[in-house]
């Protein structure tokens, strides 16, 4: 078939890129080869627009066993234990079919983790939707939540933490980011680097169907007369099969049969075989007739590019085939040797004994294009918000507005749909700054959390980037964990637009600065560009997933007040930064202005001091202050605990709105009992930590001296009303 410009374009390739392909091959590619180039050279697989920026990120540290570049990142948590984790986006598929899109997103990230030998022990997610009153939002929200639950619940991995946010920027492009965390023995980690020639290349898992073949390219009628039949089909998740695949892989991993293993994710068989061969500087030869197919008459093109789920590619040691096959038979999964490693350094695809395509591996991997795309700096917001020019709002009124807003309303109607307890190691479920998962059969635990702040990043990408890393760090500290490392999912608009590329570059430089300062390296991640429609890009939304270590597990302190008559201490200084706050957004729809500045030195000192206090058992409760400021932080601690508070009139700021709703960074709220208050103050003072003693806990009233006194049960109701109303209204 003649490769026309139209076919090239349908494959998402630029004419320049096509010329590069011709040069690398020293001939024209055929359609199969073109499809393979298109899959490997697309943004998702090649990181062509992001790579030069990603390279600058800190990825090393004493705690890092494996940084970016493998299926997932690996960190050391002492003894022989390692934690393997990664976050990934499934934005576009979830917008098309929310249930299946979200489900296969969870399935994909789980495979990334167990491919490396880890048993998955926790799932997290960060999901962003359009405005609640947008006609598509309800269906997308409910579909995504059921999809995440459907997959995680069935496979039996607890979904323990996450965030759900609404903003009209996601009206036409929702974000569904899923993170998986697994545990492995350090001595039993599996990588994707092929070694040795003539080793068996084995296909295991589900059969290959025409799922998701090459998204953009297949709609063209020019390809084939039966084009209608060959439109890309939505991938359907099969958590049941994945559970079998998980158990079978872990069983096989008990000995040393496996040389290399790679999950067939995006671009399926193509990327998995290229990845393994490329890392080992080898070639790979596939006999496509042997690929287990779900449909009749599948072509080599379809087999190579299918994105059917729940499949893996394994390179086996000699003589291990029989044992391995037995294991996969036991679990009723396909196990077929479909090829071998070679010394040709080519990807060779045979079908019915004829070579249908042959491409040098390095042309697909190391020689893929890299772009230093033009980017421009964001101009800082000139707008300054002066509360004096706005209608005066009472504290209580402002609080109710925020508590009842979609973004701040209680999300237990979501978390109640996820099995958080299965595996019986969930020490802290949702409803805290971070979840805590015990390492099975040990006294150790990890804490995990995900965070994003798209409005901060939009307004000032560098500050925003710094802020998310710090908030994530704080969330781990608040539950008594030492933060170890992060994974990031970088959701951005169109990188060919220099403003968007600027948002990307600047967010990353903020992330980099914070990670370096906090010794909080990035060990894995994913970039998702082209979020948005033609002219309207989404807000830059980097999502950070963090993992921390609790070396000696105790009953978690949580974020709910424990007793009446305790002292309430705020660690970190309140400046009253009200721009970009949710107070202004919910009460005045003002979204201009700059985000709060993040002072890394304070952040680090405050965090380390708080962690020290928690480790010494001197605090009853801890909670980080983030979106919504002090008052929302206090509310979250109070209304779900049944314990009220009485806060004194602030001594340092005259404007109450700024004091209570300002979103200054680096702050924590601590509950300390009478017995320990002196010790706590002494430790804070001796470390030069700024803190305020703002009041005490009391029975059932949320009280701010001279300003408001509300029954916490009323505030509880207000915080839990939004979803009911939302469902009721849109059901009509």
């Amino acid at each position, binding site marked *: 078939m003649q490769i026309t410009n139209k076919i090239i374009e349908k494959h998402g390739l630029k004419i320049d890129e096509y010329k590069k392909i011709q040069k690398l091959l020293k001939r024209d590619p055929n359609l199969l080869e073109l499809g393979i180039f298109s899959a490997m050279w697309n943004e998702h697989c090649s990181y062509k627009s992001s790579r030069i920026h990603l390279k600058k990120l800190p990825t090393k540290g004493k705690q890092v066993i494996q940084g970016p570049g493998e299926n997932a990142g690996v960190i050391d948590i002492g003894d022989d234990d390692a934690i393997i984790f990664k976050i990934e986006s499934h934005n576009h598929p979830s917008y098309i079919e929310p249930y299946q899109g979200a489900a296969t997103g969870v399935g994909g990230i789980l495979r990334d983790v167990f491919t490396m030998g880890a048993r998955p022990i926790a799932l997290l997610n960060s999901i962003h939707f359009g405005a609640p009153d947008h006609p598509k939002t309800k269906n997308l929200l409910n579909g995504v939540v*059921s999809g995440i*639950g*459907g997959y995680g*619940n*069935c*496979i*039996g991995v607890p979904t323990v933490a996450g965030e759900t946010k609404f903003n009209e920027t996601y009206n036409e492009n929702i974000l569904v980011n899923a993170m998986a965390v697994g545990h492995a023995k350090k001595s039993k980690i599996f990588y994707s680097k092929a070694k040795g020639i003539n080793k068996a290349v084995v296909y295991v898992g589900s059969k290959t169907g025409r799922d998701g073949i090459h998204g953009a390219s297949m709609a063209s009628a020019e390809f084939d007369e039966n084009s209608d039949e060959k439109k890309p089909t939505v991938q359907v998740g*099969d*958590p*049941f*099969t994945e*559970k*079998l695949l998980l158990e079978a892989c872990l069983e096989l991993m008990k000995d040393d049969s496996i040389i290399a293993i790679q999950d067939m994710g995006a671009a399926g068989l193509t990327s998995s075989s290229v990845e393994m061969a490329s890392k080992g500087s080898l070639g790979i030869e596939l006999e496509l007739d042997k690929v287990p197919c779900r449909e009749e008459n599948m072509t080599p093109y379809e087999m190579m590019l299918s994105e059917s789920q729940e499949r893996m590619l394994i390179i086996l040691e000699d003589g291990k085939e029989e044992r391995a096959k037995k294991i996969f038979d*036991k*679990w*009723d999964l396909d196990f077929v040797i479909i090829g071998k490693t070679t010394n040709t350094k080519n990807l060779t695809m045979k079908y019915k004994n004829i070579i249908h395509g042959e491409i040098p591996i390095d042309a697909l991997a190391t020689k893929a294009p890299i772009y230093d795309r033009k980017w421009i700096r964001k101009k800082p917001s000139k707008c300054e918000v002066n509360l004096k020019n706005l209608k005066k709002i009472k504290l209580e009124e402002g609080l109710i507005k925020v508590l009842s807003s979609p973004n701040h309303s209680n999300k237990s109607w979501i*978390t*109640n*749909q*996820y*099995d*958080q*307890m*299965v*595996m*019986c*190691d*969930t*020490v802290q479920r949702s409803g805290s700054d971070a979840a805590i998962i*015990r390492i099975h059969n040990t006294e150790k635990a990890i804490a995990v959390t995900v965070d994003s702040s798209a409005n901060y990043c939009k307004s000032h990408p560098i500050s925003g980037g710094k802020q998310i890393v710090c908030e994530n760090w704080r969330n781990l500290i608040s539950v008594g964990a030492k933060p170890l490392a992060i994974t990031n999912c970088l959701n951005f608009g169109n990188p060919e637009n220099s403003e968007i590329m600027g948002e990307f570059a600047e967010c990353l430089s903020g992330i980099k600065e914070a990670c370096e300062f906090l010794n909080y390296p990035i060990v894995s991640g994913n970039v998702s560009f082209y979020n948005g429609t033609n002219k309207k890009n989404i807000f830059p939304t980097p999502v950070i997933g963090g993992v921390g270590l609790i070396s000696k*597990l105790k*009953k978690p302190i949580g974020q709910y007040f424990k007793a009446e008559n305790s002292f309430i201490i705020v660690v970190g200084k309140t400046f009253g930064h009200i721009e970009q706050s949710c107070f202004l957004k919910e009460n005045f729809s003002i979204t201009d202005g700059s985000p709060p500045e993040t002072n890394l030195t304070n952040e680090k000192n405050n965090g380390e001091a708080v962690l020290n206090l928690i480790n010494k058992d001197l605090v009853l409760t801890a909670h980080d202050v983030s979106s919504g400021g002090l008052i929302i932080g206090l509310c979250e601690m109070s209304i779900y605990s049944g314990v009220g508070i009485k806060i004194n009139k602030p001594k340092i700021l005259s404007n109450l709105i700024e004091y209570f709703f300002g979103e200054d960074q680096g702050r924590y709220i601590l509950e300390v009992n009478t017995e320990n208050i002196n010790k706590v103050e002494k430790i804070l003072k001796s470390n030069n930590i700024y803190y305020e003693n703002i009041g005490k806990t009391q029975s059932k009233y949320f009280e701010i001296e001279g300003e408001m006194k509300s029954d916490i049960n009323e505030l509880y109701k207000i915080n839990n009303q939004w979803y009911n109303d939302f469902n009721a209204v849109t059901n009509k």
Partner: protein
Amino acid sequence: MKSSVIVFPGSNCDRDIAVALEKMQFKNQMIWHKETTLPKSDLIVIPGGFSYGDYLRSGAIAGKSLIIDEVIKAANDGCLILGICNGFQILTETGLLKGTLLRNKNLKFINKDVHVKVTNNKTKFSSKYKINQILKLNVAHNEGNYFTDSFHLETLKKENLIAFQYCDKFGNINNQANPNGAIQNIAGIYNSKKNILGMMPHPERMVDKLISNTDGINLFSSLIN
């Protein structure tokens, strides 16, 4: 006491129950569903999870597996059988327990801690509990809405075969305390010989203070006696 936990493809609370049984000093074995003989056991547990992905109907396909014939034989010989969550669904599909588990009335998966009342404490599964004792247990299911015909319901009541009922924290059995719409707030039932217990809540999730509470322990300690 010897126990056997039957593992189906898609079972996912098998490890959890094994941990709980071993903690309570049972000598436990895991039995893969393709096996055709059962080791001699005092207790057989069918664990929670999504056997066969819950496809077709939850429990339906596991109910047709080879090992189930052995379970039925053992049950008829008086062996103690405990089905938790998906295990309860499987027991109803095999006919060892009557009734069925419909989709939750809110049509959503539910995972939360709920209160249940011990309706009968005179069985081998419940002797260590007090009558009407209120337990806090965790539920995690899509189909936990127990339903049975009125004739069988009468039998359940008359023969004292209701094991647990959902209640509020004060012990009131009412609609608000019913998480899934189960008839008469039924959370678990016995067969007429009271050697088979099927229940939706997970007692094995409640044996460790650090994770939750220890309200599930007495179910296992009742059995060990």
